[in-house]
């Protein structure tokens, strides 16, 4: 699969002696993925988005967007769209006027832009407010207007910086559904502190900290869904030796009533689970729960805290 976005050793410092926001940042996002862009405050997420959007110029390194070197507005017209984190929409226009204008600037004809704006505003459930002045809308509604502007038309790559910030739970859920519907049709890169949300939505994760990429890959790889399992077991002596003999390719450890299993490169958690279950049954130990991998949040806390 080709990549929608590639960063190679990109650095950006604010001011001559200021903070180094990006420090040789390298990562990639495959085309068609819904990518979670994760990092603590000040990790460089918004700076990365700003570099991709052409708002900031990197000091060094290279990056390619949809096969184009660097940010080139005319080559990427309508193909790249961004929801900036804290950009104001202005108060004078209506949502319909603003989204139509931005869609036209994105390369659509007048009629296409009007249709795209109407569809996008329907998508974020703002149909009944589309002709009200933006200045009269609530914070959540303004946020939805901004999301509509990012989704209007036929963008191939959409960057969303904290898309659900300021939305109530119902609106946030509705937006997650909209984003999930885009799976396979366009590449979405979503920056958010809500890691549960990202884990449910995304299939690719890039973790950044101090301007560097600390981990990237599919959600399954990053959280260890394909390589780690935790068995929560009932009372009784845990037969660690018997389990290790039954599945010699995997590593096991015990924490309280939990059996932690780590598969090697050639390991297969599906095959091992049958053998482990058989050993446990033979020793009369109940299986209360089996979890694959660990949550994205726990992975992130472990990695970022290192």
């Amino acid at each position, binding site marked *: 699969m080709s990549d929608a976005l590639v960063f190679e050793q990109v650095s950006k410092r604010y001011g001559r002696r200021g903070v180094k926001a990006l420090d040789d940042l390298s990562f990639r996002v495959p085309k068609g993925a819904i990518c979670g862009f994760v990092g603590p405050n000040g990790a460089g997420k918004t700076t990365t988005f700003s570099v991709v959007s052409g708002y900031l110029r990197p000091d060094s390194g290279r990056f390619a967007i949809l096969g184009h070197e660097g940010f080139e507005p*005319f080559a990427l017209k309508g193909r790249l769209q*961004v929801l900036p984190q804290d950009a104001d929409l202005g108060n004078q226009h209506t949502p319909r006027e603003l989204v139509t204008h931005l869609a036209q600037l994105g390369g659509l004809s007048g009629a296409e832009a009007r249709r795209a704006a109407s569809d996008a505003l329907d998508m974020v459930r703002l149909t009944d407010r589309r002709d009200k002045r933006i200045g009269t809308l609530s914070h959540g509604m303004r946020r939805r207007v901004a999301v509509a502007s990012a989704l209007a038309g036929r963008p191939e790559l959409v960057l969303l910086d904290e898309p659900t910030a300021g939305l109530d739970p119902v609106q946030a859920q509705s937006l997650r559904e909209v984003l999930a519907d885009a799976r396979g049709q366009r590449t979405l890169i979503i920056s958010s502190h809500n890691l549960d949300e990202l884990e449910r939505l995304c299939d690719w994760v890039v973790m950044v900290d101090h301007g560097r990429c600390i981990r990237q890959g599919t959600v399954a790889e990053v959280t260890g869904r394909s390589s780690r399992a935790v068995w929560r077991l009932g009372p009784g002596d845990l037969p660690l030796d018997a389990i290790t003999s039954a599945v010699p390719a995997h590593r096991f450890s015990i924490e309280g009533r939990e059996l932690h299993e780590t598969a090697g490169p050639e390991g297969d958690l599906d095959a091992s689970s049958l053998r482990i279950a058989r050993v446990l049954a033979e020793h009369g130990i109940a299986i209360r729960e089996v979890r694959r991998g660990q949550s994205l949040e726990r992975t992130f806390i472990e990695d970022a805290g290192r």
Partner: protein
Amino acid sequence: MLRSLLDTLLVARFELMRALRTWRALALAVLYVIALSGATYIYVRILWFIEAGLAETLGVPMTEKPGAMMDELMDNGELQRMIREMSGTPDAVEYLLTWPLLAVWGLWIGILLLPFLATSASAECISIDMSTRALRFEALRTGRAELVLGRFFGQVGLTGIAAICGLSGAWLVGMTQMVGNDPVFLATGLAALGLRAWLFGLPFIGLGVAFSQLTASPNWARVLAVGSTAGSWIAFGLAREFRDTSWGWLCDLVLQVLPQGWLQGLWTPNEWLISGLVYIALSLCAVGLGFVRFARRDL
């Protein structure tokens, strides 16, 4: 190229729509209407005063409103001296007397007022969106040059609309406070000479847009732009004053790059177009100077 042009027009249209919905645009138009109408009213009273003197000299009865003795007024040396001083171009008096007097007055007031109003309004057109980061929505979808040019043309349109409103006020004063004015002739005169005042305003719009690109603080941009406009008048006065000294070469150079240095052309039948073209060039140069910084800055 075509795409660039289209983007520029789209940004200009949006900028104009936005500007027309802000209280600042309304303030610009209202201020210009009040200033031009008020100044026209004062001018009408001055004409009435001159006419009163003429009527006394000729021993004819005075009318309630001025305009009844327009032919005699045109031959009056005092009025011709006034027009000569206003235009700074003695040769143009005869030509200017072929236009309605109110239109000539409108041009003079426009030359004085429009630069300040234009710079004040245009100075915030980019800086305000840099401060709120609203510029990011458009900056993602088009080039920075198209963005800046679009904003500039939007401001040009806004100033044009303010000028039309102001001239309409002057026309109304002329029609209600004077007698003998042909409505079409007065409107044509105001429009034709108003166009020249608007052309003179272009470099100052460019100046405002230039400062708007330099700073994300709209207030600071406005202070710089209005200050520079005032400075340009001072520089113009000094350059004319010291033109015949050993610094004459510098004064000539300053007059070439100052919009005021090309003012005399606006009062003449043939050279106003050349001055207009110079003003277009100067305005684009000013925008371009600001763009040197804007093209490289982080948004």
